[in-house]
């Protein structure tokens, strides 16, 4: 039997260390992926889902998405903090979001658009206000966004 292996010039033993080395790398990658997902994944809820959870959702970092209520964006006196309301069709009341970070996405300044979707990352406080550490806008007509925007065709 050994002669078969030798005639191909591939004895088993010398490959073993490469199998082991490859296995170590594969395990390391899997470990990093698993630990990474465990440590960094955040729940991603809509406004109504967040409200349905009530106090249970307080004081954990999560992401909440909703549509910006047009014209609700207000800048505080210090010029750096902003607050605004987001909602979704199933939400009973809009969610108040406060954010102290200066720059908010440019699309939020649009007081006429009713389709600016906001994703806020942060925590819900006991008063029911969401304190955001990061605010992103999902811009419906951003270049890479693929779902074609159907605009009203009227002329």
């Amino acid at each position, binding site marked *: 039997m050994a002669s078969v292996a030798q005639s191909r010039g591939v004895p088993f033993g010398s490959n073993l260390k490469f199998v082991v080395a490859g296995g170590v790398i594969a395990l*390391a990658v899997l470990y990093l992926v698993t630990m990474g997902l465990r440590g960094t*994944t955040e729940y991603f809820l809509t406004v109504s889902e967040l409200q349905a959870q009530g106090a249970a959702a307080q004081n954990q970092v999560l992401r909440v998405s909703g549509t910006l209520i047009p014209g609700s964006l207000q800048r505080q006196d210090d010029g750096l903090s902003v607050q605004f309301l987001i909602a979704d069709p199933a939400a009973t009341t809009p969610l108040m979001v406060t954010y102290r970070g200066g*720059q908010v996405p440019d699309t939020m300044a649009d007081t006429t658009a009713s389709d600016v979707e906001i994703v806020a990352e942060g925590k819900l406080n006991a008063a029911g206000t969401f304190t955001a550490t990061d605010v992103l806008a999902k811009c419906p007509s951003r*270049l890479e966004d693929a779902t074609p925007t159907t605009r009203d*065709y009227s*002329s």
Partner: protein
Amino acid sequence: MAALGQICIVGAFGLALYAIVSSLAGVRVRSRELILSGQNAAWGVTALITAASLTLLIALAVHDFSLRYVWEHSSRAMSMDLVLAAFYSGQQGSLLYWAWTLSIFSAIVLWQQRKPGPHRVFMPYVVAVLMVVEAFMTLLLGFVATPFEALPRPPQDGVGLNPLLYDAGMRIHPPMLLAGLMSWTIPFSFAIAALATGKLGNEWLALSRRYAMVAWVILGLGNVLGAWWAYHVLGWGGYWGWDPVENVAIMPWLVGTAFIHSIQMQERRGMLKAWNIVLIMVAFFLSIFGTFVVRSGILASVHAFALSEIGPYFLTFLSLVIVGSLGLFFWRLPRLRAENQIDSLLSRESSFLINNLLFLGIAFAIFWGTIYPLVAEAIADQKVSVGPPYFKQVAGPLLGAMLLLMGIGPLMPWRRASREHLLHNFLVPVGGAVLGIALLLVFGVIDPFALLGFGLCLFVLGTILQEFTRGALARHRATGENVVLALGSLVRRNNRRYGGYLVHLAILLIGAGAVGSQVYQLQTQATLAPGQSVSLGAYTITAQGVQTTQLSGVKVTDGLLTVNGTDELRPEKQFFDNFPQQPSTKVGLRSTPFEDLYVVLSDWTGDGPTAQVSLAIFVNPLVSWIWAGGVLLLLGTLITLWPAPAPSRQRAMIPSSIGVGARA
């Protein structure tokens, strides 16, 4: 216009189908005429898709708003270069652009491989594969997502382009990225041809190596340009956000990088034949997946999938391609046995093997993080988000290991390294890195991540400089050329090797830029009345109010700032007449080789010299190194691709400029 474009697309679809049937039937019945006819049909596809693309470009240029696409993506107020860029700014147009560039690349391949020779046996299959992809794209363009949809009553003016896209980056980044994804189709078609013909030696690699390199550099530059665009336009102070769209564009590039390394194992040692086929297949699958994700919106949510008309088509096509290619692969697997085996863990072979595993590992980690929200939603009905912390935590250590290997691998000999060899090659780089870390400590760099990152960069830099120095000195001694000239001829004669080192140097620059800007970014916000100042790092920024100017089609508000008392800096907000409520940001940037001062005008109250401004201010160290890395990446790849000189003319043909470039 609409009818003409539509006829061209449908015609191209028909011709592509004919080319597939004719090429494959030609092989089957051994008919040169049928094979030739298939190739001619492929030329015809190129001509028809070119005609369709020109039709759309002309419609954009003459503002023919009877086309829905023209109306949705352009307006009369836009300058001509932007109007033409609108060609690839929407879904349908960018798919047409993809199909067009693929048809041009196919024509180039047909032209380059036109002469008789052993490669001719591959060509019918290459044509068939290219035309399968082209038929799929024209099917989409002709019947599902057509850019030539007509409007019954042409409006007076168009909607125009999203203001975010009014930027020079917009004109080069998306076409580079899409072309980069597209171009992996070419080496993939050669791999399929190799499987189909059973000629699984080095011929197909020799043919497709250059095409793979071209795809690699285009996609690489597309990614760097994407980072550049995000940095200059999005105004959040960074350049890479681990957004799904960014992730799907980097994955095929990572797998492609593994491929262009591991093909050397097959060329030199006859190893990893099956592995190379798998790598190029995966790179192609990921490219199609990337195009699909970028253009279908699926990663926003599984529910977005239903909204996207092209989604189901892409998924079906991708599944068929995967099943078909893997079927072919397993059928040929018995012939893909290695001719040699790896002798030692300390060898070039095993470095390549580990390099490959790491690249695939990084690609897998990014892939899993990107699709995990979909998986969680589909299986557990739970919406989660995976953000930058995951990617940094997972990709960071793997990229660090990659960097280390980039220093070790090229200095390892084939087969087996001896102790003397290791000492000879690594003493200086390791010593240099240790010395460099000590110096960094003296200068106050104490962050462990920065020390490790910069230390690895210094080590790799040492190995590369050592290679160039040794090579140039050896040549100087052997030929008597002066050292600069010797360096030039060294690169000229061994362009693959030294071009490769330059690419490594480029990656090093990008890596050092990433480490510097990750660890040492400074950030603050301030609201300033005229005359008030804020300090960050070495800068004191003083506000001087704002200035608003009305230009054609756009109103611009500049924040007037002075930096350290003298230099002016003017961050801007632009309000386009078509989108008055959606301003776009133009960052005030003061760039030096070592750091960028990056100022965003967030808000202001009042107008003129008395206005109060709100600013977001960043100091981003070493970011310009990333852009320099992008330039060097292109230069190094071009040197590797440069045809090697004929031996007799070598000395006469060495241009001195290459020597200068190589030292840069």
